[in-house]
């Protein structure tokens, strides 16, 4: 933890009342805010253990007969384990590939000047500016032409590059001082070495951030997997969750159980990735 950002603890060592009350106030606000953040998740969980849950307008604090029946239903009557495995697999592949395609493009946009680079970057950004709802029909027809409908690859291909990730990493690479590059270049390193040995290690927080977001966007993706994946063995979590709602009626406890199951892996990944997102400046080698 950088020394400079420890100022508050240093002053509180003097235990001035002002600093102490400031710290207390901060803790209170953070905790209150966290409770507010936690509440919907708590409610989702409570609904999932309330058997035959209606969709009451007022979330109950604790159900009368809590049971995990809904989770049982989820995994025995519906092939949820398979669905979770599909989502995990697709998200992992998407994340790894996006890290690669984003880092390489970001390096080019930050460190490899060429004529028209600005225009190309604008075109890259432009790919984020048309909603998927409109691209879906042509994209579907295209993948049908490639013979990739109802396949994992068909679901994955459009996710392999993301202007979001490229933009994120470009900003991060721009923050890495060029002096580091130059030091390596003087030592005889080419772009590839600079990329892998200088730039990448210095943007670890951004890489960890992108890991979380890329995984999340794949994990929660709905519209594209809906139209391209049809077989029950291939469908992903969001589709399965939507399928828990019937034409006329819905078992909300099962739906909420599905939501809980859906949240947990994402949360685990985020907590794990936090370590890398929060990293001391000492390791970035500026000195």
């Amino acid at each position, binding site marked *: 933890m950088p020394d400079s950002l420890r100022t508050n603890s240093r002053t509180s060592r003097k235990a001035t009342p002002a600093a102490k009350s400031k710290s207390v106030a901060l803790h209170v606000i953070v905790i209150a805010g966290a409770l507010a953040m936690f509440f919907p998740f708590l409610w989702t969980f409570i609904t999932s253990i309330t058997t035959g849950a209606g969709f009451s307008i007022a979330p109950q604090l604790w159900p009368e007969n809590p049971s995990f029946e809904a989770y049982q239903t989820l995994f025995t009557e519906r092939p949820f384990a398979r669905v979770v495995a599909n989502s995990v697999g697709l998200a992992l592949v998407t994340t790894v590939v996006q890290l690669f395609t984003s880092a390489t493009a970001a390096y080019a946009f930050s460190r490899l000047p060429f004529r028209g680079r600005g225009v190309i970057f604008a075109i890259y950004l432009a790919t984020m500016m048309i909603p998927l709802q409109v691209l879906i029909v042509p994209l579907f027809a*295209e993948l049908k032409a490639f013979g990739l409908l109802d396949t994992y690859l068909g679901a994955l291909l459009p996710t392999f590059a993301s202007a979001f990730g490229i933009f*994120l990493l470009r900003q991060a690479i721009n923050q890495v001082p060029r002096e580091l590059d130059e030091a390596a270049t003087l030592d005889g390193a080419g772009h590839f070495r600079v990329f892998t040995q200088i730039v990448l290690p210095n943007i670890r927080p*951004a890489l*960890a951030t992108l890991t979380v977001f890329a995984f999340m966007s794949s994990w*929660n993706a709905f519209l594209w997997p809906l139209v391209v994946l049809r077989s029950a063995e291939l469908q992903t979590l969001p589709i399965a969750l939507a399928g828990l709602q019937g034409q006329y009626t819905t078992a909300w406890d099962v739906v909420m159980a599905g939501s809980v199951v859906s949240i947990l892996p994402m949360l685990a990944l985020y907590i794990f990735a936090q370590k890398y997102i929060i990293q001391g400046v000492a390791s970035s080698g500026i000195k």
Partner: protein
Amino acid sequence: MAISTIGISPTNTATPPPKRATRAKRTSAGYVLTVCAFLLPSAIPLALFVLGPMLAAAWISFTEWNLITPMQFVGWANYESLLADERTGEVFLHTIQYIAGYLPLVYIGGLALALALNRALKGRSLWRGIYFLPVVTSWIAVAIVWRWLLNPNNGVVNLALGWFGIDGPGWWTDPDWAMISIILASAWKDLGFVMVILLAGLQSINPDLYDAAKVDGAGSWSRLKNVTIPMLSPSTFFVVVISLINGFQVFDQVYAMTGGGPGGSTQVVVQQIYDLTFRYGAAGEASALSWLLFIVILAVTVIQIIGQKKWVHYA
């Protein structure tokens, strides 16, 4: 205060490399290959799976198509009818209202969170995890809870307002307040996202800058204003650009919380695009509308990219 000038380039003491060598390097075949090697992995998927369909969507915008029967070419008719329809202006207005409320809220809230959780605080990792929870919770659950919180009759918010003698509004049941309800729920949900981005940015600020500031006698507010915010500007730039691009395409939360109502008061552009394509059999008009949206987003983004020289400080 001289801090801002120090802040711009902390280690700009090195001499720039000789220009001639750089230029020669730039045009060599090896360099071209290098650029291609770094760009192709992303260029190919983007071209094939985004740009290609975008062009197809452009073609579709010049046709009348209900997806079921063959397309019919109609030239500019879709664009003309969209520009003449007051509904188009309405959906753009609602979208802009959303952005105008959402962006400041989520940025300031996310920044406050990032600053708070960046310092020594008990259980910091736990708090960061909890603040990120809404980001990964589905909109189904979030929408239900927020509709409950903002329930005009017995929701927590109106009850609390009642203690102060304020008559709470109808929130999501009231056309004048429905969009505000969506803004509150969205900003709340995305706080964790902004927090994560800004936390990463805060981590890369050189602590020497803070030390120098303190040596100059700067208080914490001044350090915030003159060191943190400028040095955070690349991350801020990213958050603003992405939030605007995504904000113009807002859909999930509107669909989950109000479905575009009440009385069409929260109908946003992408909801309209979806309805036109899959519910009203007007895929051509939907494509035209999405290209109008594209032009708006592009213009806004280009303005920001050009403007970044004025306020974004890179290392």
